[in-house]
């Protein structure tokens, strides 16, 4: 396939969908490649097993090299935006300061990124979860925070109509929103771009990327068949692990020494608490509140009220047999709060000769201290809310997979420059979570969109 497209975009998640839209709207002929399958409101899996197996890499989970940390990354059209909670927060100055220090890139500040935030926010339906949507899990979070004097705030979600008042349970949308309410790229930017002529190819796994004198050559498998695509330029939007794997397999590490370095994931630690009365944390709005306390931000963690479907809960429980079953029978009586660590200890992504990814990432040193401080706060909150017993789960996991292609000025310590090009490769761009030069400690989705909008303007300027 050659000569048909001005740009190929690899990965259809939060970044790929946004970039595909702005480039197509700017008049470019674009092809969006996605390794996973395309699902929609009528075809999303209806149980957790099928959801995990079909819509996530690794059949559900991928593990760190020591198997102490599990990573979840979506593999479907729309990527992680289809299976996350679409929490959309802007970065604060603390996050931008950290990025400035790590990257030396001038525009990475709240003021210069504000127009890009405004552009993408203006196209989405974003609202704070109102108190009327708080289920008992959220009410306990608020009650515990207020008794301990901790500040909290409502979460800010991309949604149109979740029908909470009518009895809809948003836990089901962990396998995709069957109401098309969640503002995933699947139902927003990709849909809009397709209306303008974007070509979408699900089921295409890109295995190699080569820079050529007239652009790029991509090769991979589509429905079991090897295919090659040539185009003047490519945007890598397959996330921290996907982008790193493709570039590592394609030999870019020789030129880009920092490729795969600086991997962060906001390690998350779940704590469950049992209450005498049913909590029914799986009912209604799945998530509603977060901590908003400067002391927590300073200490390097944040809290969110959240819960887990039965399979995830059983996995998180440290044990098996009758003890596990007795615990699961208390499902309706459990509340949950998670700690998300603002991690500072970088991990590393490598790929072996067969293309298997290895993620060296541990919750250690300062990050472990931050996690422990968060767990102490969670225990205080849950005890204040009247918890009978508390279970802190030993396994941590990462949903916000960031870094590996850090943005920066110095070619020795970064992979992508301030124009979102790989250093030395003007036809290869990246603007997704892989370019994060440090963990922000804030939900990354909205900033990925804003960076992607800015990157799309750079690509259009280059054409």
């Amino acid at each position: 396939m050659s000569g048909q497209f001005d740009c190929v975009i690899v990965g259809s998640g939060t970044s790929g969908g946004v970039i595909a839209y702005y480039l197509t709207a700017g008049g470019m002929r674009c092809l969006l490649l996605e390794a996973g399958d395309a699902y929609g409101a009528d075809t999303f899996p209806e149980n957790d097993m099928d959801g995990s197996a079909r819509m996530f890499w690794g059949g559900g989970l991928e593990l760190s090299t020591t198997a102490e940390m599990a990573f979840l990354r979506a593999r479907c059209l729309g990527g992680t935006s289809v299976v996350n909670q679409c929490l959309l927060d802007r970065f604060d100055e603390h996050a931008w300061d950290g990025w400035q220090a790590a990257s030396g890139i001038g525009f990475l500040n709240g003021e210069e990124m504000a127009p890009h935030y405004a552009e993408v926010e203006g196209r989405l339906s974003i609202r704070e979860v109102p108190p009327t949507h708080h289920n008992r899990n959220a009410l306990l979070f608020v009650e515990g925070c207020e008794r301990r004097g901790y500040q909290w705030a409502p979460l800010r979600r991309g949604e149109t109509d979740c029908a909470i008042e009518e009895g809809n349970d948003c836990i089901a949308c962990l396998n995709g929103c069957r109401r098309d309410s969640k503002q995933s790229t699947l139902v927003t930017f990709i849909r809009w771009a397709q209306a303008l002529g974007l070509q979408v190819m699900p089921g295409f796994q890109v295995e190699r990327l080569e820079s050529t004198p007239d652009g790029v050559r991509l090769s991979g498998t589509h429905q079991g068949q090897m295919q090659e695509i040539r185009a003047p330029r490519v945007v890598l939007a397959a996330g921290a692990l996907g982008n790193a794997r493709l570039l590592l397999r394609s030999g870019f590490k020789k030129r880009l020494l920092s490729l795969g370095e600086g991997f962060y994931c906001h390690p998350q630690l779940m704590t469950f608490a049992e209450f005498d009365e049913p909590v029914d944390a799986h009912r209604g709005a799945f998530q509603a509140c977060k901590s908003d306390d400067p002391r927590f931000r300073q200490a390097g963690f944040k809290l969110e009220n959240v819960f887990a479907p039965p399979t995830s809960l059983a996995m998180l429980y440290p044990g098996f047999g009758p003890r596990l079953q007795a615990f699961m029978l208390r499902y309706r009586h459990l509340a949950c709060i998670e700690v998300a660590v603002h991690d500072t200890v970088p991990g590393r992504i490598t790929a072996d000769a067969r293309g298997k990814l290895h993620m060296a990432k541990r919750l250690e040193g300062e990050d472990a201290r931050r996690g422990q401080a968060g767990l102490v706060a969670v225990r205080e909150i849950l005890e204040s809310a009247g918890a009978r017993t508390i279970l802190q789960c030993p396994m941590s996991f990462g949903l916000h997979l960031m870094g590996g292609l850090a943005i920066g000025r110095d070619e020795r310590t970064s992979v992508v420059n301030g124009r979102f090009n790989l250093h030395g490769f003007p036809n290869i761009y990246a603007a997704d979570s892989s370019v994060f030069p440090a963990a922000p400690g804030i939900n990354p989705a909205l900033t990925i969109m804003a960076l992607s909008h800015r990157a799309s303007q750079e690509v259009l300027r280059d054409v």
Partner: protein
Amino acid sequence: MSEILTPREVRALERVGDVVVPACGPLPAFSATGCVRYVDDLLRYMPPGDVADIRLLLRILSVKPTAGIRFIMSLAGAGRRWPGPIGAALRMIEIGLKGLVVSLYYSGKTAPGYTGTVPTDAIGYRPRVIPRA
């Protein structure tokens, strides 16, 4: 029943399942639900190397008595506290086997004609999706 696992491996998975999620009050035992017949729905999406590892593990466990399976699951669970490659291997065994079992068990899928309690019903997990008008 499975196009990926041999009958011996399926039987071993059922025995592991009954150790991980035995009958308990209203919760049925893993093998009673017949959910194992859907194992291919999981395995066909897993990396081939992981499937090969699980099959090897199941073949090893197939010759162990139930007490032996329980011991190995206990050992694997204790791997959380072990450093180094041995701890990593034990954690992978625990996550691999337990993940397979609880994914099937809480999928809500049961054998045709199954009349017992569905595990998700027993714990009160029945999320509602209100269709868009």
